[in-house]
């Protein structure tokens, strides 16, 4: 444990990914410092979501290594990676639509609280677990929706719920894929505040298109274009970077 404590929360070393003949990620190396809020930006099709899918084990890498707190994640299944302390949200809202808000959050807690595949614990009697679930629902400000099936929530509520499920298990490293996509200005502001409190003390890696969100939230910004990192640094430095302006921000401003 002491040997790995100096390692970054997440380290990618020369990661490649090809789908058949199409190379999508071409040698990405990236360190996400423990406790930092790190944003990945880049134009559409740059490979940001693919990068997330590689880190979270949804797809295997073609070559290169990914380490979580100094431990290699090669060949691990998504649930094994999750148990090692990495959790993620999806670009398209991913919740348990037919279950209530309460059940959604509680499912997010179950594994980390040691329940595993138990069929001998009655959940109604697990007071500590249920109280913890309610506390998290309060932090998400979803108390009034507690017993509503998740599929019936508004879009912004569903995104908040997904963030709740993502952080419920207490993962140290949180990956959020475009958490404010499709939100209004006020909804976005609310979501950013929520992400800020929910990711406190954790390592956050976020893919985001909204530049105001990125510069508001992130300590470090990495710019990915066509499967390669073209710049990485504090927001101020990235804002001033010529290559970035040309490749990405410039097109945005034009």
């Amino acid at each position, binding site marked *: 444990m002491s040997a790995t404590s100096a390692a970054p929360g997440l380290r990618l070393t020369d990661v490649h990914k090809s789908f058949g003949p199409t190379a999508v990620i071409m040698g990405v190396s990236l360190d996400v410092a423990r406790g930092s809020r790190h944003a990945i930006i880049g134009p559409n099709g740059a490979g940001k979501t693919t990068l997330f899918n590689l880190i979270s084990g949804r797809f295997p890498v073609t070559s290169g290594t990914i380490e979580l707190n100094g431990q290699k994640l090669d060949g691990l299944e998504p649930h094994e990676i999750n148990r090692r302390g990495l959790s993620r949200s999806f670009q398209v809202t991913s919740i348990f639509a037919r279950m209530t808000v309460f059940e959604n959050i509680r499912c997010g807690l*179950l594994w980390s609280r040691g329940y595993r595949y138990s069929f001998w614990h009655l959940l109604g009697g697990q007071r500590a677990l249920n109280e913890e679930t309610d506390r998290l629902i309060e932090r998400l400000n979803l108390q009034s929706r507690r017993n509503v099936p998740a599929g019936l929530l508004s879009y912004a509520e569903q995104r908040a719920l997904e963030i709740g*499920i993502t952080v419920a298990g207490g993962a140290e490293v949180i990956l959020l894929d475009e958490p404010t996509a499709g939100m209004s200005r006020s909804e976005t502001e609310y979501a950013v505040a929520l992400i800020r409190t929910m990711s406190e003390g954790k390592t956050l890696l976020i893919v985001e298109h909204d530049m105001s969100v990125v510069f508001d939230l992130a300590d470090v910004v990495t710019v990915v274009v066509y499967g390669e990192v073209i710049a990485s640094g504090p927001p101020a430095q990235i804002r001033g970077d010529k290559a970035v302006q040309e490749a990405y921000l410039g097109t945005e401003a034009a």
Partner: protein
Amino acid sequence: MNEGLTHAAVHPLPARRLTGFLGRQWPWLVALAVALLVPWLSYNWTTGRHSGFIVSMLSQIGIMIIFALSYNMQMGQTGLLSFGHAVFFGLGGYLTAHTLNAVKGGSLWLPLELTPLVGGLGGLFFAILFGYFATKQRATAFAMITLGIGELVTSAAIMFQTFFGGEGGVSTNRMTGRSLFGVGYASPIQVYYLIVAWTAIAVVLMLLLTRTPLGRMANACRDNFERAQFVGYDPRMVRFVQFSLSGFFAGIAGALYTLTYEIVTYDTVGGAMSANALLMTYIGGVGAFAGPVIGAVLIVLLQSWVSLLSNSWLVYAGVLFILMVTFAPGGIAGLVMMHQPIWRAGRLGRLAGPYARLIVPSLLVAVGFVLVIELCSFLTIGAAQGKSLTLSGITVNPRSATPWIAAALLLAGGGLWMRVEARRIGAVWGALTEEIKAMGRRA
């Protein structure tokens, strides 16, 4: 996880708990009371006998309730469509038959009341064996594998004579003389009460299972298996454990089948039996725990009563299935639950009139439809059996035009009338939904 147990020790008052329990679970208690009383409604006091038909039908209902509920552990709760669930039912039944024979032969001591456990453990064993392969997949691939397993076991049942007894099956005798309570089980009513007891146990256990971490994660994997992975669960493992436990309960049902009929043949593992589970579960409703119970009762009633009256009961079951899938995918339980918000708002009465107006046209359509089916049936099978179609004492000639025209008129007229009434219901329903929404906004 002990802290959860100690916290649970802070109970509300026992009396309040009891009324709360009764308030929530009264339908089950009513069902249990009905199950215990119905045989006595047909009791013949002069001969001192129960109606064999009623007791046999009730026994079958009990067995099928367990079977359908175990099927729904996969279908409704985990989102797994299986075409081979009878495998665990039948194998549990075969194992029970062999166990009974061993007990009778004196090589084994086991009270009859506990033999369903043998069937259950047998079902569990084979569900672990086959489930290991099947649950690696989900969706269509899973369905195809279970279909294959069903065919495999059915053909094995015909091939391996020593265990399955070939086409003749395995006969047994439940009167082993071994009982916990000194009951002989010579009469069907004694077996029936054993079935009631085991059905009650199985129903309670399956209901409690839905409230465990496994049960909830089964729902979670059904809704979104990818999200389940990112809360730390392996969906394959969830499917596997749930599948295995479902096999356990199917095995119990199979054992009770053996106790009732004292013979097990290869059709207990076959496709028709698996399809029966699907039929009962779907018609009853996959979305509610009690759905398959309703389905099992309904299908067994159809099987027993309608098959007495008509050769074509399977046609009616099939049409019912198609109607449910098309118009009420939530099954009967789904139809009932649809009315819950309206009932809570105290406005169910507004629907009573429109529903009542639907009765006559639906009866017309039903009579027209039954007439067509029976006319067809009497042209073919009925003629071969030398039967003639009699409706309220009048012999109908299926080769004359009159009954066909009558059927066509009933179908067309009733159908058009039904459409008008259905629109009216739709309008009332829409208005009610709007009102309830408005009430919700004000609250």
